[in-house]
Every structure is written in C-alpha cells, then in structure tokens.
C-alpha cells in the first residue's frame, strides 16, 4: 500500500516539475532522451564537441609557438651577450669560452625548429613566415659567434700542444752541455721529427713550417760546426756558430706568425660578437 502511494505522489508531481524546469535543462533532457533513442546522434554530438575543443587548443598552440619563437631567440642573444661580457671575470677563461661555445652551439642547432604539427604554418601564414625568418636571423648571428669562439678554443688547444712541445725541447737543450755539438744536433733533429708529426690547427701551419725550417737551418749549422771543430778550421767554426745563432733568431718568426694568425681569429670573434 505504501509503495503504491509513493508512485501516485511521483506521478502526480511530474507535470508540476515539467512546468517549472528551466529551458536549458529541458533541452538537455530532450537531447539525452533523443540520444538514448538514436545512438548515432550521440556519437555525432560528442565528436563535434571534441573537434571544437581540439581546434581551439591547436590554434592556441600555434599562436603560442610562433609568437614566442623570435622573442625567445632575441632573449637568448641577450643572455649570450651577457655571458660573453662576463667571461673576463672567470678564473679559467679558456674553459669558460669553450663551455660557452659548446653550449651555444648545441642550443642553437635546432633553435628555430618547431613541432611538426605547426611547422607547415611558415609556408602558409605570413606571421609564421616572419617569425621563422626572424628566428633564423638570430640563429645565424648566435651561430657565427659560437663558430668563431670554437675556432679560437680549437686553435688555443692546438697551440698549447705546440707550446708544450717547444717548452719540452727547450728543457732538453738547457740540460745539454753547450760544447756537445753532436748531442745538440741530435736534439734538434728529434725536435724536427716530432714537429713534423705534430697536428696543428690550419692557422698555425705557417708557424709550424717556420719552426721546421729554422730548426733545419740550425741542424745544418751544427753539422758545419761539428765539421769545422773536427778540422780545426776557425773561420768555418765562426761562420757555423754564427749560423746557429742566426737559426735561433729565425725561431722568432714563429711568434710573428702565430700572433698574426691568432689576431685574425680574435678580430673575427669580436666582429661576430658585436652583432649580438
């Protein structure tokens, strides 16, 4: 009996609820009811809503990507410029420059790459085209700085090896008795052989050649010195001794050539850095 009364109450109340329901809610109920009756409609409605949301997200994503591309590149330029200006305060400037050059090189390699989802926009939309072009301009400038710094660090690494090679040779000479001409000659010949095998940067090739030619001159002079000493020919001895000294002064050309070629690398680095 009680169950029946509840049904009656529910049935009696239904028209009253229907009369007072909001329009949207009524529509919602009708749509739900319709979807229950026609499942394909439900699918269409759901698909349309999802498509609308995805389209919105895609447009937002594209605007965000292209809008930030050039400004991010410009910010990066400013950051790099600031880092370059602070290099002089580093304890190990060579390592700092090397680290900076490598990180800039790695960072800017794919600087202007964007997601494949929106990359085609630069062929179709002017705004994307301009943003990409601007980004590539920044990328080139940063890339040029990175390259010129890498040239310098590579050169210095090679030059330090060359310098160590010369310093080692100087140490051997200093420990050799001055009157032992044969041993001096042998030491210089070993220096030539090792110098020929030494791998140097192309900018140091001229200095390397100067080292070899000067050393060859010194070896030849020691040959003459040894012969003159053996034959007890004083004039020949003097000439050979003077030639050995001349050979030493010819080594100065290494300085000349290394500073000149390095100055060119520095000029290039400064020139590229000034565009940041």
């Amino acid at each position: 009996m009680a169950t029946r009364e509840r049904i009656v109450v529910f049935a009696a109340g239904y028209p009253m609820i229907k009369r007072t329901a909001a329009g949207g809610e009524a529509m919602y109920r009708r749509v739900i009811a319709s979807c229950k009756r026609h499942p394909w409609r439900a699918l269409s409605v759901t698909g349309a809503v999802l498509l609308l949301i995805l389209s919105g997200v895609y447009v937002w994503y594209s605007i965000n990507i292209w809008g930030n591309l050039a400004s991010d590149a410009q910010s990066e330029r400013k950051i790099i410029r600031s880092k370059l200006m602070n290099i002089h305060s580093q304890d190990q400037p060579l390592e700092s420059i090397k680290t900076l050059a490598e990180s800039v090189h790695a960072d800017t390699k794919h600087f202007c790459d964007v997601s494949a989802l929106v990359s085609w926009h630069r062929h179709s939309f002017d705004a994307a085209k301009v943003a990409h072009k601007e980004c590539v301009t920044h990328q080139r400038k940063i890339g040029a700085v990175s390259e010129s710094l890498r040239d310098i660090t590579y050169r210095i690494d090679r030059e330090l090896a060359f310098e160590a090679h010369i310093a080692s040779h100087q140490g051997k000479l200093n420990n050799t008795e001055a009157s032992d001409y044969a041993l001096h000659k042998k030491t210089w010949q070993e220096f030539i052989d090792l110098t020929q095998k030494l791998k140097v940067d192309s900018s140091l090739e001229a200095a390397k050649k100067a080292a070899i030619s000067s050393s060859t001159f010194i070896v030849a002079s020691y040959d003459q010195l040894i012969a003159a000493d053996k034959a007890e020919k004083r004039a020949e001895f003097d000439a050979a001794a003077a030639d050995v000294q001349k050979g030493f002064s010819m080594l100065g050309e290494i300085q000349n050539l290394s500073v000149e070629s390095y100055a060119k690398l520095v000029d290039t680095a400064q020139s590229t850095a000034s565009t940041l």
Partner: protein
Amino acid sequence: MVCQVVYGTTAGATLFATAATPVLQTSQLNSLQKLPDTVAEFAVPTFERPAWYKKQVADEKKAQEIAQSNARKATQAATGRIVTYSLSTAGATSSDLGEFSSQVNQTLNDARGWARMGIGFQEVASGGDFNLVLSEASQVPTFSSACSVEWSCRVGVSVIINDARWTGASAAWNASGGSLRDYRHMVVNHEVGHWLGHGHLNCTGAGQVAPVMQQQSIDLQGCTFNPWPLESELWSSQLGIQ
C-alpha cells in the same frame, strides 16, 4: 721597442669600435696565447771556443777581419736588392712628414742597419714592398686588434710608426738617457724587422748588446740599448736571405 704584433699579452684592451659596451675583450683573448712568450725563451747559445781555436786567434785575428770584410762585400754584391716602400699617414699626426721621410730613409740605408744584408731601401710614391705609416696614436689599433695606442706595430705590409713614440720615444728609453734619434733608428729597424720576418728576441746575457728585435722599451734584461740589427739578425725570410 715594443710592438704588439708579436706581443702576447696586450696591456690595453682594444674594444669594438662600433659597440658602446665591449662584448669580448682583446686582452682577455690574447692572454690565452702562450706560444709567443715560450718561443721568446729560447736562449741563443754562446759557444765556448775550443782550445785549438783560441790558439789560432792571436795569429789570425787580423786576417779574419779582412776575410769577414771581403765576405760582406761579396754578399752585398751578390744580393744588391732594392726594397721599395711608400709613406702614408693615418689620423692627425703632429710630426713633420718631410723629416720623417728623410730620417726613415737614412735609417734604412744606414751602413749599420738592415742594409748590411746587401739590400737598399727606396721610397716610392705609392705601392712598394711595404707601406710605412706614421699614425696618430689613437689610430694604431684600427690596423689590428693586436695593436695598441701605446706602441708601434706591424700588420701585413703595413709598418706602423706611432706618432707619439716618434715624437717622444718611450718612458723607459728616456729614463735611460737614450737620444730621440736613436729611438727613431730603433723603432724603424724593429718594425721593418718584423716585415723582414723577424719575431722578438731576448737579451743573450748581462752586458751584451741588445738585439734590435728585443723589446728594449719594456726591459733591457741586462743588455745595453742598441738601435741596429746584430750580425745574427741579418737574415730575412721575406727576402729569402739567410
């Protein structure tokens, strides 16, 4: 003489001419270079004469001088090359260009100078094997970042004489009582020496005469001032003279 073509660590930082704030400092980058300083540490050997040599010296000293004199004349006759150079100025210079031209020519052709290699120097109106530039101090760094306003310099075929040094020598030179004319001899011989293919040299020992390619304005290292090339400096890779 000090010049920054082969001077590893430049004292004055040359910054970008176009940028208000320097991005990279020249002095910082130059300080990475160690090779030039190490090469300068080569100690030119001094040979202790063997006993047989000393025995002969007393008897043959005079003959040897004649032989050397003859050998020098033979070298001069065999070479006889004329090196040409042009003169120009950079910026606003205060020196008398006529006097500059005349004194430079005298120095280059002086019998105590590079002319001992059997070469002569001739000024030409333009072109020439090298260009001798009298430059306002502030203009010197425009030739290369390795050059500074302080010193003279050599960049490629440009032999740049700093007008401030030409007119006033250097503090170290003046303090030692050296004459301005000798300084001018030295600066011309030193910078032209770079063009001839020379780098910097160190003093060979206390009391010795300084090589002209030594940076005499910085430190004599115990040597005595010398504006002229030593016998051992008479070579030129530029001219193929050994």
